[in-house]
């Protein structure tokens, strides 16, 4: 089954004629992603690798039906593109763009929530359901259909772990980068819930990093609700120099959380298996499955 994205999910690419959008549209098409339309204002009427390009989502929507939008437009225009996607009535928006101001992200998430739309990203590698479809920028040779779900805050770290999982023969159902920005759409817990109800996913890998309290919230959630599948977590940044401190308020919002130590301790307390190294993930997985 996989989560969120399946073979045949209909995808529209916003910013399809841009440098990144164009490059990855081709790669996505090669992987088998069903891209039904593209949108770039001012480029309506043209074609791009056989995909019809429209000026607006409204126009594209009048000719096609789609399930997912992939946003590749530059940061200064990304908020408008995301709101356009939300207004179009789509149910899943994947924002690849990085460097989007936090204020814009907050507005995107606020309006997405009001409209019942799921957002992945921004500043994320996207989502791939191995062997079926990908909406994002993941290098495909790293992935192979299998039984492990991955959710991660970091793009390249996902590849690192996915590659090991592929090599050890387990393979992945869906891999999901939630994005590295302070404010993102879908969070770890949302993804874990989805994986829990997915028949094909037999174990889940969570890749966290220092900063924020997303990992601690997961631990709290698991401690409260439990989790019916093996769950392995890795946290990057144990030896990183302390980053910028968000004044007094930052510390108050997250409490004493945010360090690798705090996250790992919280995971341990919730009974989540912890990988010391990225390569430990597969070692634990093979033991558990």
């Amino acid at each position, binding site marked *: 089954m996989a989560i969120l994205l399946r073979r045949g999910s209909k995808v529209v690419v916003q910013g399809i004629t841009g440098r990144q959008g164009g490059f990855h549209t081709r790669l996505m098409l090669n992987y088998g992603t069903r891209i039904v339309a593209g949108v770039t204002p001012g480029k309506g009427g043209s074609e791009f690798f056989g995909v019809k390009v429209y000026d607006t989502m409204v126009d594209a929507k009048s000719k096609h039906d789609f399930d997912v939008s992939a946003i590749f437009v530059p940061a200064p225009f990304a908020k408008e593109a995301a709101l356009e996607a939300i207004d179009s009535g789509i149910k899943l928006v994947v924002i690849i763009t990085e460097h989007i101001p936090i204020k814009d992200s907050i507005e995107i998430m606020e309006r997405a929530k009001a409209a019942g739309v799921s957002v992945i990203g921004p500043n994320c590698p996207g989502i791939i359901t191995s062997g079926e479809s990908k909406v994002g920028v993941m290098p495909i040779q790293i992935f192979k259909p299998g039984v492990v779900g991955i959710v991660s805050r970091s793009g*390249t770290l996902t590849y690192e772990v996915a590659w090991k999982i592929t090599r050890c023969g387990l393979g992945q159902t869906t891999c999901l980068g939630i994005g590295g920005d302070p404010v993102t759409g879908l969070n770890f817990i949302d993804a874990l819930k989805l994986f829990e109800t997915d028949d094909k996913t037999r174990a889940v890998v969570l890749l966290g990093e220092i900063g924020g309290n997303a990992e601690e919230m997961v631990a709290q959630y698991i401690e409260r609700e439990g989790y019916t599948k093996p769950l392995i977590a890795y946290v990057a940044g144990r030896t990183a120099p302390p980053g910028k401190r968000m004044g007094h308020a930052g510390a108050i919002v997250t409490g004493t959380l945010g360090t690798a130590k705090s996250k790992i301790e919280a995971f341990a307390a919730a009974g989540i298996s912890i990988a010391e190294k990225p390569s430990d993930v597969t070692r634990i997985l093979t033991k558990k499955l």
Partner: protein
Amino acid sequence: MKLFEFEAKKIFAKQGIPIPKGKVTYAPDEAGEAAHEIGGAVAIKAQVLAAGRGKTGGIKFTDNIEEARTIAEKLIGSKIKGLKVGSLLVEEKLRVSKELFISVTVDRYARCYVILASTEGGVDIEEVAEKSPKKIIRYNLGVFKGFHSYEAIEIARKMGYKGRKMITLATIIHNLYSVTLDYDAELAEINPLVETEDGEFVAADARIIIDDNALYRHSELREKAMKRLRELTPREAEARRHGLAYVDLEGNIGVIGNGAGLVMATLDLVQLSGGKPANFLDLGGGASADIVKLALRTVLSKPEVDAVLINVLGGITRCDEVARGIISSLNELKEKRPMVVRIVGTREEEAKELLMNVGIKVTDELDEAVEKVVELIRR
């Protein structure tokens, strides 16, 4: 980008938040003059981008002009929390009746802004938050729905104020929210917000952190950020100018990777294997050959570096571009220090071929690459 207290206060004043009478000074004589102009007792405050100044001698009080000069002389050029003091803020000393705390920042988990407010402000606010969380009012708010005057009034009321004082405090809270939104701040904080003996509210301290991603829409702040870059070490400055996230560390293994998570994981592994990273360097997404070249030049410009570990997992980043960057910089730098390259992902095959042609062998496994570079250093 963090703003200095005096910069943040200028913004506060523009947006209707009361600040103390004061002047920025860069020399002892100026400080003396400022103290004279302000009259009476003054506070002399070192302008450094670090919290906890007060506890480490960065804030002094005097009511004597000559003494103000002397204090300034000692402070200017000294180091507070490891940062050199370049300027001072000389301000009227407030007659404090109460210290409050108000802050607007980002609540990541709730995906919105949050206002934090407490009547127990001052240096120990974090302790208050930990020990008696009920003494801190938290109020979430978005961009689309906005934040209304009646919501600010409700916060001020919950802080225990009434009548005119409640309205004044609410206005300050609302203006702090406006600062946050208008300036794309990740944090706008007043701690303490002093209630004076006359019953007025004054922002005794000011802290603003601007979202770097939003600097493009604040030309004045952007210029300030550019100027700040010039104050970094030349290595950090050049790296940042080109969008590289570079941080100097104290070891001897140069590390280059793409994606903060992966670079952090690499640093962890190096340390776990007994090595010491010389830096953190994230190429970001989709780096060109030129950026890779610049990254290598940056890392290698540090004489302490004895070997380099490159760990690239191509997604947006194309491995062939990385390979081209490595090759062209090697040609240019005539570098002798050993290099371990691990490269996987988009256009991996092309990259491996290119590197093979110039005699660089690519390692497939990260653990292996890390062990190799640590071993190289040990020899």
